[in-house]
């Protein structure tokens, strides 16, 4: 029996009256690949923060590393024991170069006082070689794409005396190829006795390599199982207590005048000759590889990426694509892909975030905010979207990813839009929240709203949408009416054009 590298017993953590963790037991043996599974708010993030020393657990629990028990366990302790965390937000320094970012942890743990250029360049080059990439060493990290930034974060974790690598949602921004490369790196690490802990919603791809899986639900350990005994359905069941299945597609809307008409919209280096229409009550999906121009198109329809030619109209009325404000007035709402930086004011309350789009409509005759109407509207939205919050006054930053996404949705639903554009509405959120968001989208469509949904996940658009457009390199390359097509048809079409 191998001794545990990390052993945590009876760990609890309470935040402002909410029990995030309640007597959790958890262990990692050297050289294993361990998955930590759980829905939003199950306490996964809190557990990681405690392992990395960013948060202290409440009195009563114990943390043991390499057989010795830890007191006053801090970030420095975790780093000294070779524990590295790659957070979902990557925790990079946008103002520093690739080489400076990658070498940072190694420099900190070696307690260096002085820097030699050759040394940190070497550290960075070696780390990049490990996973077989070559990014420009002196590029500023803030200018890189998200997936490149993630590679930098992974390289940084690979420097130094690594014993345990923790990755929080590592695969959300990676393409299939990049994920495969990551998994082969992780298997390589296992060969060298380094443990990896994955925390992820995308369970399928991780199950191929995992040794053990720990499932958390509502801050408690449901259990820890050998991965071969499980499949993703079983894990889903343990995480949620129910089985997830795509529910019936919403019935097709009755024929009527088109809600949105896009006519040969083009923008240099973004997309070309985009024409399609969308009818009231219809859910249209746009899918395709990263960098196919999907997001750029969505931004253009919302007045944030002015196209060179072509036009778009809502109910026969031309949209002024220069002005987001006018697009909103014409009934367009846009829920961005990156809810953290584009969709929410993190330190502000749930209520304020939800009301920011409609504050002008809540003014009384004298120009003051009608607080009674405001709070009844907030309560209605929070209830309708089943947002889990201690109170509507809590800061959005304290919510889990799925609940944050619901707040972004709430904010735009409050404007009573005619056309709702959703960019990756379920990226990085778990199955239970995903189901709830799908149901909600269908409900909105049934009320006559047009929904334009952009998603990476073919199964998501295939099961939820009435119609699916495939984009590739800036053009619409295929259109599927889902009544008569299958998920595989779409996947084939993407593979052909890619």
């Amino acid at each position, binding site marked *: 029996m191998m001794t545990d590298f990390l052993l945590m017993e009876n760990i609890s953590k309470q935040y402002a009256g909410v029990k995030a963790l309640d007597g959790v037991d958890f262990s990692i043996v050297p050289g294993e690949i361990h998955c930590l599974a759980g829905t939003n708010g199950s306490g996964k993030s809190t557990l990681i923060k405690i392992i990395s020393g960013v948060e202290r657990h409440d009195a009563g629990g114990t943390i043991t590393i390499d057989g010795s028990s830890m007191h006053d366990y801090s970030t420095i302790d975790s780093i000294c024991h070779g524990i590295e965390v790659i957070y979902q937000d990557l925790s990079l320094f946008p103002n520093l170069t690739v080489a400076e970012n990658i070498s940072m942890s190694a420099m*900190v743990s070696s307690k260096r006082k002085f820097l030699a250029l050759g040394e940190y360049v070497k550290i960075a080059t070696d780390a990049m070689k490990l996973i077989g990439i070559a990014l420009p060493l002196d590029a500023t990290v803030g200018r890189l794409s998200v997936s490149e930034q993630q590679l930098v974060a992974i390289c940084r974790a690979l420097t130094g005396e690594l014993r345990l690598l923790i990755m929080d949602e590592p695969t959300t921004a990676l393409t299939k190829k990049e994920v495969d490369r990551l998994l082969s790196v992780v298997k390589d690490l296992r060969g060298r006795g380094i443990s990896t802990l994955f925390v992820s919603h995308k369970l399928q791809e991780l199950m191929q390599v995992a040794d053990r899986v720990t499932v958390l639900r509502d801050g408690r350990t449901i259990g820890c199982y050998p991965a071969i005994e499980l499949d993703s359905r079983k894990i889903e069941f343990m995480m949620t207590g129910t089985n997830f299945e795509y529910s019936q597609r919403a019935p097709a809307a009755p024929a009527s005048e088109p809600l949105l008409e896009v006519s040969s919209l083009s923008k240099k280096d973004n997309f070309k000759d985009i024409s399609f229409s969308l009818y009231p009550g219809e859910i249209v999906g746009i899918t395709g590889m990263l960098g196919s121009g999907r997001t750029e198109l969505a931004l253009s329809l919302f007045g944030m990426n002015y196209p060179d030619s072509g036009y778009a109209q809502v109910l026969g009325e031309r949209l002024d694509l220069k002005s987001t404000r006018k697009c909103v007035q014409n009934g367009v709402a846009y829920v961005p892909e990156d809810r953290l930086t584009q969709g929410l004011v993190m330190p502000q309350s749930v209520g304020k975030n939800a009301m920011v789009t409609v504050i002008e409509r809540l003014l009384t005759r004298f120009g003051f905010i009608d607080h009674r109407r405001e709070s009844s509207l907030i309560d209605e939205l929070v209830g309708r979207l089943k947002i889990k919050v201690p109170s509507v006054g809590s800061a959005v930053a304290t919510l889990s990813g799925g609940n944050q996404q619901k707040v972004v949705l709430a904010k735009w639903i409050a404007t009573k839009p005619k056309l709702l554009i959703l960019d990756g509405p379920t990226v990085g959120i778990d199955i239970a929240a995903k189901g709830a968001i799908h149901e909600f989208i269908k409900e909105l469509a049934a009320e006559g709203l047009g929904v334009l949904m952009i998603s990476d996940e073919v199964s998501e658009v295939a099961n939820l949408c009435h119609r699916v457009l495939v984009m590739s390199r800036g053009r619409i390359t295929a259109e599927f009416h889902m009544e008569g097509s299958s998920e595989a048809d779409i996947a084939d079409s993407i593979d052909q054009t890619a």
Partner: protein
Amino acid sequence: MRKLAKYTETYLVVIIALLAILITSKNPSFLTLENMFDLLKSYSFFGIMAVGVLLVLISGGIDISFAAVATVSEYLVAVFMMHVGGNIFTAFAVAALVGTILGFFNGILVNRFRIPSIIATIATMNLYYGLLIFATGGKWIYDLPDWFSSFAEIQLFTIHSANDVSYGLSIITAIWFLVMLAGVLILRFTMLGRSVYAIGGDRRSALRVGLNVRFTEEFVYSFMGFLAGIAGVVQALLVQTVAPNSIVGKELNIIAAVVLGGASLTGGKGSVLGAFLGLVLLAIVKNGMTLMAIPPVWYEFFVGCVILVSVGITSYRSKVERQRTASIQVKA
């Protein structure tokens, strides 16, 4: 060439060169060694503090109190010299010690109490300055020791011009250049310097990778105080009198010069060379106006224009860069 175009420093050099040509064409005495040495001497005081301001800005903070710290240090040193004596080294040591203590106090307020740095240092500026005025009654000090006055006259090398006027590089300028060298060494070649950039880039990430954020922040404000103390002595050397109200009010121009040099008020960016060039730009605007016989009442106006235009250009450039979406190779 394209690489050079990325740096704020490059633009500053170009602007400075153009201005120098303009001023020289109006008054040839601008571009003389004599005038240059003179400028480098009289701006040492600002220049030394600019290095401290630079570090504070890179770390993502701001310090408004440094001019008050310099004044307090200067005054205490003058009192110390009159009553205890000592030599030039003790003078610098005492001033640096006083400055460091006052700066450290700023650092504690910012780091441990998490008071926004602008509020904390506005408070301490009033505190330090108010206490000084109360304790001294606003009295000026004129009778500085002879050894102190003669130190100010030391020149590292002297050139005799044809018409028998001699001029040279002052030891005071040398102190400024040493301080800049120290700034470069810290920022470029020490882990401490790297931490300053890291904290300014993303403070939470800095905590997560295990950087000593507390020490770094306290160091940055203490170092600012240390340099303000040194600058206080330099100011006394330059003007040979000590007045409790002679410096306060200059802090915003120094901060502006450093921002001109490419430092960002949101932290994470800036260089010693840039701060130097920013200060040079402001210095020659003022000097050039004198030489071109433009009434000094216009000085503030022109400084305002220079700051607005240069900072405007750099901010606009980075805005344009941020807005560009990643380009996609659209199928033909």
